[in-house]
């Protein structure tokens, strides 16, 4: 028993550190890139461009970068891109929901493909579901906040 507690602890610690190293590799470059980008004219341009698309989700135009980073890479990329933009708790929650449903699409699509389900189907399906879910939750926040 003593042995199994020790081995569980060590294995968990090892997995945790493995995930941490992956996380650092994603967070640091994305965060720095987005934080620097946020201070340029390009970000104003991107913000205006995506503003109408992000409005139904209660997000600012610049937050499109967080959604796209999450879809293509992973949640840590989405978080790294979102935090420098000073989001409200509702915006964090909506991005968490949308990228939680739909993230790392290329890699995970390939994994699910191996289990016999078409990758194109799961990718398109997850994007559609995340859009519906994000819209519903943002609408709920709009209703409850008047």
């Amino acid at each position, binding site marked *: 028993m003593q042995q*199994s*507690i020790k081995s*569980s*602890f060590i*294995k*968990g*610690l090892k*997995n*945790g*550190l493995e*995930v*941490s190293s992956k*996380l*650092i590799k994603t*967070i*640091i470059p994305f*965060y*720095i890139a987005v*934080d*620097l980008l946020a*201070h340029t004219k390009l970000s104003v341009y991107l913000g205006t461009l995506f503003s109408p698309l992000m409005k139904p989700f209660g997000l600012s135009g610049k937050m499109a970068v967080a959604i796209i980073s999450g879809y293509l890479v992973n*949640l*840590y990329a989405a*978080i*790294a891109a*979102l*935090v*420098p933009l000073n*989001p409200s*708790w*509702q915006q*964090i*929650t909506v*991005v*968490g*929901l949308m990228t*939680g*449903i739909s993230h*790392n699409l290329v*890699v*995970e699509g390939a*994994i*699910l493909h*191996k*289990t*016999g*389900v078409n990758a194109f189907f*799961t990718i398109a*399906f*997850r994007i559609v*579901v995340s859009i*519906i*879910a994000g819209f*519903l*939750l943002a609408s709920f926040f709009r209703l409850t906040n008047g």
Partner: protein
Amino acid sequence: MDELLKHAIFGSLKLSLKLILIIVPLMVAYEFLESSKTFKRILDGLHFLLKPLGFSKQASISMLAGIFLGVTYGSGVLLAQSEKKVLSEMDALLTAVYLSMCHAVIEDTLVFVAIGGNGFYILGTRIVIATVITFIFYRYLKGKLSKG
């Protein structure tokens, strides 16, 4: 520019540290859960919940791995089961549909809670939506598979 870069680097390190402090204890907790008797009880409970959605007992094993550990971590189990052909066509499809929307929920939710999100809304909406959509698929597939 120098000041901006310093601000960006400091911010990225702070965020990384915050997330590591959440993830490492969580991974340790996973290991304890996995090697405990509670894990088996959760499995039985989950089967009971997943039955109305059309999942078999075999499928709930992949589901549990996927819901808690994520598609990347849970994929080992998923692939092993799909290779052994223990999952029926219906099970494989429903598992893929549910898991594509709802996996690694604990880790995913906590990292957003760490930066100030509301975990209840993230987790609740995700589970409800995944369950409703899987049920719709089940009804649709049941009709289709039985016809032909």
